[in-house]
């Protein structure tokens, strides 16, 4: 399997397009986290210093967790960054592994499809009936539903276009992971983006990082 960003042809073009989209969504997720930090700090200060809490910080940040999560999920799949267990897989024959990976791709596409369809239906219902959350600052319910639907659709695309595991030449490289930080000092990095031959966890192999 060739790397998506160097090959040519329609499949490679589709991969590049999907990867660019999932990366943009993941970058948006990172910005959402930054916005959470700033708005919650602002709300706390406004409440303490001016006894003027915002009515938007609570509902927006509650919705932000959903946004930050589901926007990053397709990119993590495309770049092999999800938590998965490799115990049995690595003991399999190459042929059995290919079958296993096809099953994983199909399972992921099916889940993404179920999310996309049900969330889209829910979003349409929310728009038609004007459903909103309760409270003084109510977010229309179709907004989180739409984000879910988009994430589900991107997950389908990633599952169909990308292999179920990171390509061999994008394989475990702790230093290149987000979370290892940009530094070359091996003492100065975190292992939250750890990849081993036994366990794939927590961070992408997209060495450009998600934060651009």
């Amino acid at each position, binding site marked *: 399997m060739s790397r998506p960003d160097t090959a040519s042809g329609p499949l490679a073009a589709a991969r590049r397009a999907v990867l660019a989209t999932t990366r943009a969504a*993941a970058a948006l*997720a*990172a910005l959402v*986290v*930054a916005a*959470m*930090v*700033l708005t*919650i*700090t602002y709300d*706390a200060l406004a409440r303490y210093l001016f006894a003027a809490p915002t009515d938007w910080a609570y509902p927006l*940040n*509650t919705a932000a*967790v*959903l946004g*930050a*999560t*589901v*926007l990053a*999920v397709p990119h*993590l799949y495309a770049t092999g*960054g*999800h938590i998965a*267990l*490799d*115990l049995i*897989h690595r003991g399999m024959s190459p042929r059995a592994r290919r079958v*296993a990976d096809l099953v994983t791709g199909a*399972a*992921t596409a099916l*889940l993404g499809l*179920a*999310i996309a369809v*049900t*969330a889209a239906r*829910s979003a349409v219902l929310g728009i038609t009936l004007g459903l909103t959350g309760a409270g003084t600052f109510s977010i229309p319910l179709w907004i*989180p*539903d739409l984000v*879910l639907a988009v994430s589900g659709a991107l997950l389908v695309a990633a599952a169909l276009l990308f292999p179920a595991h990171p390509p061999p030449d994008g394989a*475990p490289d702790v230093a290149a992971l*987000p*979370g290892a*930080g*940009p*530094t070359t*000092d091996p*003492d*100065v*990095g*975190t*292992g*939250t*983006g*750890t*990849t*081993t031959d036994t366990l794939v*966890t927590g*961070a992408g192999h997209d060495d450009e990082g*998600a*934060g651009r």
Partner: protein
Amino acid sequence: MADGLVVGLAVALLVVLIGLRTPIFVALGLSGVLGLLVLDGWRGVELLPLALNAQLQEYALVAAPLYILLGEALAVSGLGRDLFAAAHRWFTRVPGGLGASAVASSTVFGAMSGVSISSVAVIGRMAVPEMLSRGYRPAFASGSVAASGALAMLIPPSLMFILYSSITGESTAALFAGGIVPGLLLSAMMIAYVVGRASLRPAEAPRDTETFSWGQRLRALGSVAPALGLVVLVLGSIYTGFATPTEAAAVGALAALVMTAVLYRALGWTELRAVLASTAAVGASILAIVAAAYVFTQMLVVARIPDTVSDFVVGLDVPPWVVMVAIMLVLLVLGCLVDAASLLLVVTPILEPAVSDLGYDPLWFGVLLVVNLEMAVITPPVGLNLYTMKSVVPELDMAEIFRGVAPYLLIEAALLGLLIAVPELATFLPGLLI
């Protein structure tokens, strides 16, 4: 098809998918959705967006990405190195001093980070090569780090307590307070073990010949003072009532970023971008499991599994503590096979009603559950900390790592027994502070 059979097939599908290296969130989500479809037809599938919205828009979870960000910011700062250096200067005269230093640094780092693997990686990267170069046995060296890294889950802030709060509605602040005494106790027990073992078998951990002056020790302490200040800021603002755990997380993350930029001069735009990107990646990889586990749980709810388990457990004609010990044993076995977050997320909705019906405090049960997770992350075959250890110090042999953590399982089992016998160890502080 009988509901029990459907649930059994869904669990089987879950296990098969996980075995095929399907991402855990996909395995949980798809087996949940298919179970719902068979149990309940299309209206079961309609629960999918409702469940994802309900679980991910739970206010208790807002703190999760913020504490991850706090840990990620500190991880790029070089603080881990300073912490270990400081601990080394203070423990140098003690048998197994470097091992004790590793546990002590993990304890302090655990008070800033909510995730155990980041603690293992940050401390392990420095401490283990240092110990190996001084003649420590690999099992002794890696065991102390892989086991004590899990303290980050028990000592607040803790992602696991945040997840438990999001499922049960128990207060995050109270759960954090409940983890303090057991966490410090576990840390002390680990240090006592390291020192005791090094005294009895000096060949496993040669005595340190280095000596440090009191001036050096105090200067080392000074270099970690800002970090200790951050711990005081975060936990202090929660327990003095200045801030909620969520607000403390946001302010703490901001402070950690400022500290990394200003004091450690390790944060430019590139680094900031990388820290945010890895926070989003780590957060999403965990919260995707959180959301998918809830979908799976909804399938169990539709099949009335939590009610059935609760009725069964309450109907048992044995003393409650026997039930509790049995639950701990089941969790130990499951902990070998499942990752910590999935274990917590799937068993809490099933067991918490039963435990409450038995008359136990759900807060206390949450602390017990997290001590179980301390064991789960270091039991093979599925033990996140073990493989994190291997990945940061690749020359270690997996068998050495397994052997090194085995004694810590006994220490953690002893703590569990202590907590069952003396529940006040977990409940006293929350009662006092909250």
